[in-house]
């Protein structure tokens, strides 16, 4: 069973909001209708977004870490938003695990957004239906696009490559390897929603440099018992 998902590397995300704007651009231009904006150029801009980037700070000054935190639908494998929907508009696709809303069936009761603990569903005040991340279902299967472009807009936009996309049920996929090798984790495990999207934690970046990488271990000057040869170039130690 395929379960498409995003894996977001918090160690790489720089908080530039490129994924937010590209998501908005792609999804407001599609056949499903615009993601409406209210007062976009006024004092209190508001509108529908499928993806937001938040910022958190861990620690106490001066020992702080800034963590940029992109947040969108996690396409849970046990989605609490789906069974509560009274019309069946909210559903999880069997073939690829994407959680979607059928905008033609949604009555706009907002009940699904109450059931979601992550707050990733947004009611569109103009279309009067519940909207959410579709994992760009309208482009990832589009055969008119070159294959490398058949990815969610947010993934394509991310300058540092913090967003990975793939099948988390395939153990050899890029996302599964990243989760396995870089300690991928789920948000709110206590909610028992089994999110398909996972996050990769911040890591301490360090490079181990061994002495023999700085000094030639086979430097003839260092070989025990070798006669000192003035014709050989000096070692680094001697230069220092």
């Amino acid at each position, binding site marked *: 069973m395929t379960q498409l998902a995003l894996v977001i590397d918090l160690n790489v995300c720089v908080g530039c909001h490129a994924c937010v704007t590209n998501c908005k651009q792609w999804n407001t231009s599609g056949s499903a209708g615009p993601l409406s904006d209210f007062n976009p150029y006024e004092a209190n801009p508001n509108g529908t*977004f499928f993806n937001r980037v938040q910022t958190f700070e861990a620690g106490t000054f001066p020992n702080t870490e800034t963590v940029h935190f992109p947040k969108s639908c996690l396409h849970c494998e046990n989605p609490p938003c789906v*069974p509560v*929907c009274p019309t069946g508009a909210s559903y999880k696709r069997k073939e690829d695990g994407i959680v979607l809303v059928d905008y033609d069936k949604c009555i706009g009761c907002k009940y699904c957004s109450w059931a979601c*603990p*992550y*707050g990733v569903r947004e009611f569109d005040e103009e279309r009067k239906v519940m909207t959410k991340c579709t994992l760009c279902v309208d482009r990832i299967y589009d055969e008119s696009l070159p294959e490398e472009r058949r990815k969610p807009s947010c993934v394509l936009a991310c300058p540092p490559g913090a967003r990975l996309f793939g099948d988390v049920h395939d153990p050899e996929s890029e996302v599964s390897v990243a989760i396995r090798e870089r300690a991928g984790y789920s948000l709110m495990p*206590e909610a028992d929603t089994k999110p398909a999207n996972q996050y990769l934690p911040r890591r301490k970046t360090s490079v181990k440099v061994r002495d023999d990488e700085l000094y030639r271990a086979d430097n003839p000057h260092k070989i025990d018992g070798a006669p000192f040869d003035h014709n050989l170039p000096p070692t680094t130690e001697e230069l220092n």
Partner: protein
Amino acid sequence: MRPAFSVLFLTTLIGAGQGLFLALFTQQTYALVGQLPVQSPGFYGYGAVLALVLLVVGLGASFAHLGHPERAWRAASQWRTSWLSREVIALPAFMGVVFLYGAAHLMNWTPVLFKLPNGLALDTTAVLGGIGTVLAFTLYVCTAMIYACLRMMREWHSPLTVVNYILLGGGSGFLLAATYAAFAAPSQAGFFATWALIIIALGLITRAAALWRNARLRPVTTLQSATGIKHPRVEQKSQGAMGGSYNTHEFFHGKSAAFIRAIKPSFLVLAFIGPMALLGSAPAVAGALVPAFAMQYLGLLAERWYFFAEVNHPQNIYYQTIG
């Protein structure tokens, strides 16, 4: 959560409508076994009409909650998984039975359908009343389970939610029945008022138990589990939007802490203590029952408002700082 007035009116009005129907049929059952005098068909019939009016107005209010009310019929399709869908089926079914119950009384359509072994004859109204009673309780359970089934909404995720919907709606319906009887059948007003007093008192106990429980809830979701940042001190610096969003509008009640502190004792007095004092001290006459019911309805609106406002949705963790 931001309380939606459409839902406040829906739940309080249909709660009272269901309770009124249960009260009428309780009296009819007492009369059937000879414990109370049988009332005129008009008493039951017009009482059912009153219940039906409340149910229709409540249903109408619920449409105001929908973005696409013209598609509301679709909401009956997912009864296998959704309590909201079950409510959408139970409400019209109950309304239909209340209509038939009232019509059977008013049109004297009362052939005896069958007799119990002890010789008690059950006519159409008794059978319809029995079916209506089952549906009234089904509807209370469906309405309450819409909220109680959401396991991450811990303030709601409790059997007390279901008990409270039954007792608060029932108390309101029996008090309305007493008020109605004060005009239509004054001899029966005392019977309804006594039951109303008992149910309201039970409701006060269970509602207070829910308040007590919710005041002691400790959040299981923390900023650490919501973001996965494993540090004891994590602070939000930006929520990704400066002008608010659906998340900041729908899940915060937007009222001051002082307002919240004031509304809790207010609804306890208006919905429970005030009506109980009036029912307990004054005879069951219109002069006491009309203000008691009016006060109780206002109190129940405040109670339902608080029921929503009290919920601290786990998503609120992501919306603590604008930027």
